[in-house]
């Protein structure tokens, strides 16, 4: 390995075995299922983003050029959590019942931003006697900060062509 390459790889995190990421994503899903949202927010770094592009958008979707459903920086994500926990967030009060299922976890690469991990999801949200289903895939960039796995970026892509069925995205997918 050349000196140059060695230097570049020094700033790139060596991916851990897949099971480490699976454990992390299962724990995240449990936090969402159980409305432990402040704990969930702590998974994110202050430079992180959380995005939900329009249904059917591909992985290259850019929130500066296309209309998304959600494009939060850490500040707004904090307010999203605060809002969801507020009884005045009428769409989520009384609270919906949720189930986050994660599968097909793959480590797809690693660069200076972090380790890229993708998985499929099925998220159910039940309220007012209606159960809505959200299906798609999450793209994560994860990074170890002070020995702890943290989220730099979470982007949730819906495998549908509209929100005609669900009507809204008022939960974290």
């Amino acid at each position, binding site marked *: 390995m050349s000196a140059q390459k060695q230097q570049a790889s020094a700033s790139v995190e060596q991916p851990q075995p897949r099971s480490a990421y699976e454990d992390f994503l299962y724990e995240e899903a449990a936090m969402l299922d159980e409305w432990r949202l402040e704990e969930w927010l702590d998974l994110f770094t202050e430079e992180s983003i959380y995005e*939900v592009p*329009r*249904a059917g958008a591909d992985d290259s979707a850019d*929130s*500066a*050029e*296309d*209309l*998304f*459903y*959600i*494009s939060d920086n850490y*500040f*707004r994500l904090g*307010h*999203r959590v*605060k*809002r969801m926990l*507020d009884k*005045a*967030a*009428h*769409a989520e009060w009384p609270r919906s019942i949720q189930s986050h299922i994660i599968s097909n976890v793959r480590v797809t690469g690693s660069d200076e931003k972090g380790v890229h991990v993708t998985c499929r999801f099925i998220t159910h949200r039940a309220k*007012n006697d*209606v159960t809505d289903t959200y299906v798609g895939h999450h793209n994560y960039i994860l990074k170890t900060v002070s020995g702890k796995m943290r989220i730099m970026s979470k982007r949730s892509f819906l495998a549908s*062509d*509209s*929100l*005609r*069925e*669900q*009507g*809204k*995205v*008022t939960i974290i997918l």
Partner: protein
Amino acid sequence: MPDTLVTESNTQGTSLIVDDREGGLFKVHRKAFLDDDVLEMERDKIFNRCWLFAGHASELKNPNDFLTRNVGGKELIFNRDRKGDFHAFLNTCPHRGAMVERQESGNALGFKCFYHGWAFNNNGNYATRHQKGTYPEDFNHDGCANLVEVRLEQYRDFFFINFDDAAEPLESYLADSKLIFDLIHNHGPDGMEVIGGAQKYSIRSNWKLLMENSYDGYHAVDTHETYFKYLTDAIGGPAELPQVTNVMDLNNGHASIEGDAPWGRPVAKWIPAWGEQAKTEIDAIRAEVVSRVGEEEAHRICQLGRNTGIFPNLVINDIMAITIRTFYPVAPGVMNVTAWALGVKGESREFRKRRLDNFLEFLGPGGFATPDDVEALESAYRGYAAYQFAPWNDISRGMSRPEGEPFKADDEEQMRCFWREWNRRMGEE
């Protein structure tokens, strides 16, 4: 409870509305939201006769561009032909009915039905050759094999269709609401464009409630409490709604509310949270608008915002961002909503990002406000199931103001403008 919808005299409209100007009371019967017969009448007397928003010129940039969408409950092709002229066609093969174009958008010289292969030029003309003797010699002399073209007219790049050949021209239909389109158009020197694609969602409620809600200045403080908490933090100061507002009856059922508001506006009202660099940029944008349209109109464009309802189902909300929103009932209790973001042509990437961030903080299925509106509309609809025992909605707020005293945005006059036109049209033969 009214048994028949239409009263004997057409001038009285329907029996579903009480418009007591002397008594200062305006009521809408909840059957107007629930009844299948009412929806059937709305399809016939409103959606088949009014001008309906079909698309924006910026969505078809080049000759031969097309898009397909459902407008007024009908599958439509909105396109430009080889010469660049705009058309609207029913997206149904004159032969046996299948859709002749099934992609959402594209560029094509013609359309071809996949069922039996009938083909059409993009000006709608039938373009299939058959063996001699298969059809009569003069087949299609009456145009029966062409795509059915729908009346299409535009104002300020907004294209509307009308299924009624006898309907008045678009500009006369839009009446004083043309002002709203003018103000929007003048945000930028080269006009406006639709950004990316549409948010397509649904609401389990009646379509008319979304029109009411979209320019309801009364509900904001209660329904959107959490949005204002966020905004207070985002702008670093109190987020208070304007004391001075302007309510505009734009005639023909169109109406708008106007006022200053605590949020920043991409064109062109700076807030400290955007930083000093953005301030320089926004000052320059404002100066450009002033130089083009003068101080007075520039104030309306840059400082004030407007929530506008164009009868029957187009909302243009020029608030912290600009959204165009149409909706159509698939059943009395279900509507499909399609919403777009509109931006100034040629604005920079940073500027566009700021605009879209502003849009998403409030608007759409993942915003901090729209989902709570949706919850209110769905909740109201569930309440209407008891209409036989709780029959009337009240829309009287501000109605008994003394003659000459202007209405306020948290009055409900703008909704009465909608309902009076609804009532008039539903009472027509």
